Every structure is written in C-alpha cells, then in structure tokens.
C-alpha cells in the first residue's frame, strides 16, 4: 500500500469547488457555500464571519472589475476551498483582465474623506480578515486571489 499516494488522494478529496456567473445576485450563494464549509471545519463564529466577508469582497471585485471592457469571455467566478489540517485555503479565480495588486494602495481614511471615492476598501479588508493573501495574474486566462485562514490552536 502506497501511503504517500493515499495521503495525496485523501487531501485531494477535501476540495470544494464552485463556479458560477459573475453577478452580484450570486454573492449570497457564494457566501453560503463558504460559510457551510468553514462551519464544518470548526472555525469560531467570528472567524466564519471573517472568512465570509473576505470571500464576499474578493468575489465582489471579480464582479465589479474583472470583466469590464470584455463582452466575449465567459464571465464566471471560480471558488475553490481546500481543507488543510491547519485551516482553510480559498482561491477566488476569474478569466478577466487582471490587475496589479502592488499598485493598489491601502486606503487613507483622511484622504478618503476628501476624495470621496467610494472604493479601495475591499483588498484592505481581505488582508485584515485573513492570515495570508497572495495573487497570481494571467489576464484573460486566469487571475487568482489566494487566501488562507488558520484554525486557532485553542479551537
């Protein structure tokens, strides 16, 4: 018996995938999907809420930004949730135009008030709510935001 193989395939099994049209009305479905998994994993109520919000923000960004100036491509959002022994890894993917995460500055609330630009809060929130956040951009093919939330040791 190949232990290694078995482990790999049992890791593989703990992936939850969701793919749906990039429309705001589907945010609710995405949130419920992620909340259901996070609850099963044993996250505290507060962390479930944080994960829910981070995913909502990332999905809202796809809906709002990924497919502007684009009519032909399939406008979809991909959500993949992987159970890890130490928490959850969540990847939100799109096939849209991509962006440069480095170029997005954290919002300055003072300046914010002056400019009255409503926006720029989403990525900032995601970084506050999750433990690890990274990006991978292949415009038109697949752009991803990957985030990890760790289970707290003391449950």
């Amino acid at each position, binding site marked *: 018996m190949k232990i290694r193989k078995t482990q790999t395939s049992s890791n593989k099994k703990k992936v939850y995938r969701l793919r749906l049209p990039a429309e*705001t*009305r589907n*945010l*609710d479905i995405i*949130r419920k999907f992620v909340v259901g998994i996070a609850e099963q994993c044993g996250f505290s109520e*507060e962390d479930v*809420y944080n994960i*829910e*919000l981070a995913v*909502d*923000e990332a999905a*809202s960004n796809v*809906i*709002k930004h990924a497919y502007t100036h684009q009519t032909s491509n399939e406008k979809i959002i991909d959500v993949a949730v992987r159970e890890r022994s130490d928490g959850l890894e969540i990847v939100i993917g799109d096939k849209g135009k991509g962006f440069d995460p480095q170029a997005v500055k954290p*919002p300055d*609330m003072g300046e*914010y*008030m002056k400019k*009255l*630009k*409503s*926006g720029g*809060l*989403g990525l*900032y*929130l995601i970084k*506050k*709510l999750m433990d690890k956040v990274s990006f991978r951009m292949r415009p038109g093919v697949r752009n991803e935001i990957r985030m990890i939330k760790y289970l707290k040791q003391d449950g």
Partner: protein
Amino acid sequence: MEKFSVTRTDEGAVTLLSLKGFLDAHTAQTFENVLKTLMNEQRYAIVVDMSELDYISSAGMGIFMGFIEEVRENQGDIKFCCVNPRVYKIFDLLGFPNIFEFYATREEAIGQFKNIRDHS
C-alpha cells in the same frame, strides 16, 4: 427570501432608516436608491438604525462614503445607531468611527439633530 430591506420613518426633519438583513454589492443598489431619494427631498438629517443589520461588506459601506459629503455640505449628517458588534468590528477596521458618529440608541442619535428639529 428577502435578503435586505430598508424601512424609512420621518420624525420631523430627521429621517430614520432601519436596515435589515444583508447589505452587500447586490443589495447596496436598493440602499443607494433610498439615499438618492432623500437627497432629492433635501432631507439631510439621517439616522441609520442597524440593530437588524446582520452583515455589511465594503460595497455597503461605500454607499455612506458616497453621500456623506453632499449631506454635510447641506448642514446635515449621517449618524449610526445600534450597530451589532460583528458589524461594528468591520466599520472599526476601516476607520469609520473617525468619520461617522455611532450611538447606542436611536434616541441619542436622533437627539444630536435637536437644532435641526427645532428649526424646521
């Protein structure tokens, strides 16, 4: 099935908006329309009761940012009350308490507009 609703109550010059449910990028539209209507009616003394608001994302919070300047230019304000701790935490993360006033009760929040009420 109704995921979000706004109930509007006018008390003299003050308008109370009671939010309920989930305020996200989808339902933000509904809420934006309510605020647009208030701007058209030139009602700038606004209290937002969030006791029944379960959830807010940045799209919902952006709505407040989008109207606050116009409201304040007209000697009004948007004041918040009865925000549940989970939702408040998010406002706090984004520094909203530096920009907006939060109150524990409706009465307190409405009371802040006493001058406006007496004027009208």
